[in-house]
């Protein structure tokens, strides 16, 4: 055994022991939406145990294990953070704090923010004092994100922001929003964009929820009407916001590629559904040969995707570059859609209920997730955009 793997094993044992002692039993089962803690001024703990669990993780620094200690992290390396994740998963421990601040803005601020920005925002995220929304897309700027129009005019000590952002997740419950805004109309369209942090409680900010085909309205449209934003809320250089955004998109895509493993609802797997909704013959084979084939195809796909996630991790550890990370968002989200369609086929008409007592919660959730899965290959860079990126960055095919 190598020195590093012995150290890793010791750390794993330490994590296991600590979790055993500190994770309340009630927090060791999958979390449905109502069980999640997102923090922020309007956030509340779903239960006393959830509060206890979050506070213990926060005090340990494991809410953001890779962040520096002075910002509320535990200064661990990627391998240690992964061990914590694996050990939490092993006992089904819930994620103690959810949020775009933790997953997306934090890593971007660590890379691009100045010291006072880090000091102001990172501890507040870990302490669950602020909940963040993302302001990227606009009604006229979806896949073509760089054509965004929301304008920030420079004044002496502040910017004046006018325009709107769409698909701002839960913006009606958020305290802050990180936005891409247009600060120049000269040169290439990517070159006039800046990255701005906006307090959602500022005068002139308003938000309306959007109802989706899933019946949910997690997403909102947010409007800015002459909103005054202090100059110190600019992250990185003026007109250089595109590079911050790109770094952040990498985090978002990674997150979306992994999202299947940490879904906000209790999700039945196609294999479990097959046991429940399909018939088997005397030898234990599913009698519906067509669905049996489709199930095996899906299982093989997920098996291969899981192995590729592992390979990406090992390559990162070994310092080996490969195209694998760039294809994961495309594959992961397409597989989520395949899974939802397969579940509906396996459940038949029982998978088509919208609401009411004629259907189990699991059946109703499956249908809603099916509708939600359609957004996954659109948000965070659509599948078509992902393929463009692979063609350009991996295959280096000529651009028009």
């Amino acid at each position, binding site marked *: 055994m190598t020195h590093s793997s012995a150290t890793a094993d010791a750390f794993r044992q330490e994590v296991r022991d600590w979790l055993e002692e500190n994770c309340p039993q009630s927090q060791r089962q999958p979390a449905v939406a109502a069980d999640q803690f997102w923090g922020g001024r309007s956030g509340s703990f779903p239960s006393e145990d959830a509060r206890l669990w979050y506070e213990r993780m926060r005090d340990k620094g494991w809410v953001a294990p890779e962040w520096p200690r002075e910002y509320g992290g535990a200064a661990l390396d990627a391998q240690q953070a992964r061990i914590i994740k694996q050990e939490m998963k092993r006992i089904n421990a819930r994620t103690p704090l959810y949020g775009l601040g933790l997953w997306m803005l934090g890593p971007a601020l660590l890379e691009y923010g100045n010291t006072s920005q880090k000091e102001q925002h990172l501890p507040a995220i870990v302490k669950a004092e602020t909940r963040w929304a993302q302001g990227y897309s606009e009604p006229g700027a979806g896949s073509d994100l760089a054509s965004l129009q929301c304008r920030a005019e420079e004044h002496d000590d502040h910017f004046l922001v006018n325009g709107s952002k769409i698909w701002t997740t839960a913006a009606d419950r958020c305290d802050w929003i990180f936005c891409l805004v247009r600060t120049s109309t000269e040169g290439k369209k990517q070159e006039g964009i800046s990255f701005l942090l906006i307090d959602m409680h500022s005068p002139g900010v308003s938000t309306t929820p959007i109802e989706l085909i899933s019946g949910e309205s997690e997403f909102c449209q947010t409007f800015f009407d002459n909103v005054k934003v202090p100059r110190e809320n600019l992250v990185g250089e003026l007109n250089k916001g595109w590079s911050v955004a790109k770094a952040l998109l990498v985090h978002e895509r990674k997150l979306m590629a992994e999202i299947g493993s940490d879904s906000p609802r209790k999700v039945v797997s196609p294999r479990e559904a*097959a046991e429940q909704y399909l018939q088997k013959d005397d030898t*234990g084979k*599913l009698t519906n040969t067509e669905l*049996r*084939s489709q199930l095996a195809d899906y299982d093989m796909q997920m*098996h291969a995707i899981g192995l590729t996630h592992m390979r990406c991790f090992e390559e990162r550890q070994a310092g080996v570059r490969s195209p694998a990370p760039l294809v994961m968002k495309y*594959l992961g989200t397409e597989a989520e859609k395949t899974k939802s369609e397969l579940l509906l086929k396996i459940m038949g008409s029982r998978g088509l209920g919208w609401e009411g007592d004629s259907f189990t919660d699991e059946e109703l959730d499956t249908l809603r997730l099916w509708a939600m899965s359609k957004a996954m290959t659109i948000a965070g860079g659509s599948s078509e955009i992902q*393929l463009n990126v692979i063609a350009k960055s*991996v295959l280096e*095919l000529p651009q028009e």
Partner: protein
Amino acid sequence: MPLVLNEEQRLLRDTSREFLQRSAPVAALRALRDERNSLGYQADLWAEMAEMGWACVTLPEAYGGLDFGFLGLGCVLEETGRTLTASPLFASAVLGSNTILFAGTESQKEHYLPRIATGELTVALALDESHHHAPADTGCTAQCNDEHAVISGRKVFVADGHSAELLLVVAEDQYGLGIYAIPENTPGLLRERTVMVDSRNAANLTLNAVTVPLSQRLGGTEDCAAALEQALDRGRLALSAEMLGLVEEVFERTVAYLKEREQFGALIGSFQALQHRAAQLQAEIELCRSVVMQGLSAIDDAPEQVPLTASLAKARLNDLAEWATNEAVQMHGGIGVTDELEIGFFLKRARVSMQMLGDTAFHRDRYATLSGY
């Protein structure tokens, strides 16, 4: 289990690539085809490959092997896939030697394996009897008494069956499933070379009361069914590694063509319709690379995972090989269907590899069964 190559493995890959591209490029296969070479591979090339230790990469040291692991062997096989090199490497040194390794008695292993390891002896496994891989259906029979076995039946699609010096013939007998080591010139054994689309070696065998000493039965009087399955899974993973190399090569050639071919005043690689198709292939190649590496690593480190990953790998590589070679031809356009361009050799080898040791339907079914449904 490692999913990245270590330094020694990378070195083996690089030296294999250099050697094969110099000594056995696709043009060498074309030459063998055009001259209707009776052996079907270059004997001196095989001697060089064996000299470099390729025939004994995974064999235990006790039998003259390097015990270097399957991930290492995979590096060599991937490169032979890139060059479509015809040699006894797969049929003899992988499938044949592992069949003896799992099914043979100690003295049989000591007798055969060191000679396979040096390339001096070539063997071939004669298993299939119908036009689809079906290891559970054996019609070939062996009647055994205390001293002899009399074997009768017919075998098809025996890889390297035409040139191997020793045939490992699978037959039902009173002990269960038997595997008999039958030298090439044994009376009653008829070999008919089949000319296959990939220009590589295969043969049909007819066994008319072939009589061999009972000592030629692998494993004494043990049932060999489980041993055969283990050897087959190693063969499936090894073949998947070769297919991965084939796919990577044909795909790289295609992408290179997209960057040089002009139509409508533009490089055709700038067309989004083609870019997306190429990007989708790249994504699938990434999955297949993980699957192959995991399967090969599992042979070395986690044998209990081998059956499932072998079926996963063979099914996925079958589908990818079909897809990638078809796209290669299509994206090359008219020149893609000429014999002059080498793309056709990849297309043809892919189809033979896809049938060998189980098509996608076979392995999807097996994956489902192993998964409990």
